């Protein structure tokens, strides 16, 4: 039987590539964010903030195209699930971009030569590197429709969560100096933003399972952790 709707299929493929390309933009933004944290680089942080417009622009552009596709092509079955999932992916991309901005906006608050704790900075950098890996894994899982790889994101995210808890413990024990405590609190906010970014990557993994199986379920239910 002859294949039809090849133009529509091409458009869908291109939109998927654009949506997943948003994860590359986020990955680059996170890389710069971590560099800014490591070197207290205020200028680089400002660049990340300004560059978030590109991520927002990608979100708006692909979102609008998907809405148009819904209106004009009436997609169903796998196509419908894919478009629904892409809308979620885009939302996560946009949120991850915002989390990078949140971290970068904290860097000027900590000053040029903050009373930093190298152990805590390293923890945050490890969290960031692990989150960057999660973003790449979420992208691969989506592109390959690999549910197993998507489910593995939960285990990888546990590493980020553990590091975040360690940051918290370090902050509690950072001592009595008011400046150091203020810096530690600021870094905790940064750690929290990175931890949320990793959660967004897991959310993308859940969308992979939805596209493949047609059933949506949270890999981990935060409100009911022990079913």
């Amino acid at each position, binding site marked *: 039987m002859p294949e039809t709707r090849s133009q529509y299929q091409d458009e869908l493929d291109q939109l998927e590539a654009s949506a997943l390309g948003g994860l590359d933009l986020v990955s680059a933004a996170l890389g710069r964010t971590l560099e800014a944290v490591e070197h207290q680089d205020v200028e680089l942080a400002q660049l990340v903030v300004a560059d978030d417009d590109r991520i927002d622009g990608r979100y708006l552009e692909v979102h609008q195209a998907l809405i148009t596709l819904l209106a004009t092509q*009436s997609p169903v*079955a796998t196509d419908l699930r894919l478009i629904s999932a892409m809308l979620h992916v885009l939302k996560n991309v946009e949120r991850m971009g915002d989390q990078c901005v949140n971290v970068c906006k904290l860097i000027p608050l900590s000053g040029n030569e903050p009373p930093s704790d190298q152990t805590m900075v390293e923890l945050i950098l490890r969290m960031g590197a692990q989150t960057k890996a999660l973003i790449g894994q979420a992208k691969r899982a989506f592109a390959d429709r690999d549910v197993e790889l998507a489910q593995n994101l939960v285990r990888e995210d546990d590493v980020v969560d553990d590091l975040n808890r360690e940051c918290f413990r370090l902050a509690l024990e950072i001592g009595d100096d008011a400046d150091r405590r203020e810096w530690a609190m600021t870094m905790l906010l940064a750690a929290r933003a990175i931890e949320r970014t990793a959660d967004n990557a897991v959310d993308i993994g859940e969308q992979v399972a939805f596209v493949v199986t047609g059933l949506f379920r949270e890999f981990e239910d935060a409100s009911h952790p022990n079913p």
Partner: protein
Amino acid sequence: MSLITKRTQQPSPAVFAASPRPQLLRREVGNVALEGLDAYYGASRVLQGVSLGFVSGRATAIIGPSGCGKSTLVRCINRMHEEVPGARAAGKVTLDGVDLYDPRIDIVAVRRSIGMVFQKPNPFPTMSVIDNVTAGLRLAGADRGEIEDRGREALVGAGLWDEVKDRLSSPGTGLSGGQQQRLCIARALAVEPEVLLMDEPCSALDPVATLRIEELIGELKERVTIVIVTHNMQQAARVADTTVFMLDGQLVEVGPTEKLFTNPDDERTEQYVTGKFG
């Protein structure tokens, strides 16, 4: 209404009701079952062992590419298929347990119990609006009062009464296309069928008239089993509780409409509903 010309056995009470006028609002009747249904045009076998049920109170859509046997299937239900020279059907079709291909069956009564609406509205060209609706009743020998009451009921049921009540004596062909199609639905409803077959009923209508018919299907299915053949998959998704996908004279998938259009089980269904062939 009896479906059997000469009753020689104890009939099913649901179908062979003693009353000459079955109640319009009735339930638990209108269940159609196909078992191993084959249909032929000459030597060509266009339906291949189709087994399927249409349940009372539900609308079922039949979708599939041109030539897959959708229209033939519905025309086998009310024995219209055999009207085509060289065409025949084999297997079993039952209405509420009564075999419609029993040699003793009265075909006219079958078509009264299983009404049909076609692709193009086909009002009787020389008849007025009301005469179109009540033609079947007059043929059945209903009295004048009954004809008037049921003609009005049918027009109300088809959502047409308010639009035509002041021109009941005008020619039926003077109505718009959408109104003509609802007139044909009213004509089918007037004889109080248990099942209404609709073969592409909206393909000749504009979007507004189409939506009016779709709303009507939603209302009618409460009292008449609806089977609709459509090429418009969005229409199937909007009106049907159950959707049947056919290919090459065979059933591929039957299931709840929502499931079939969001997560079909069969790869061929997936390919068809997403427009990758057909």
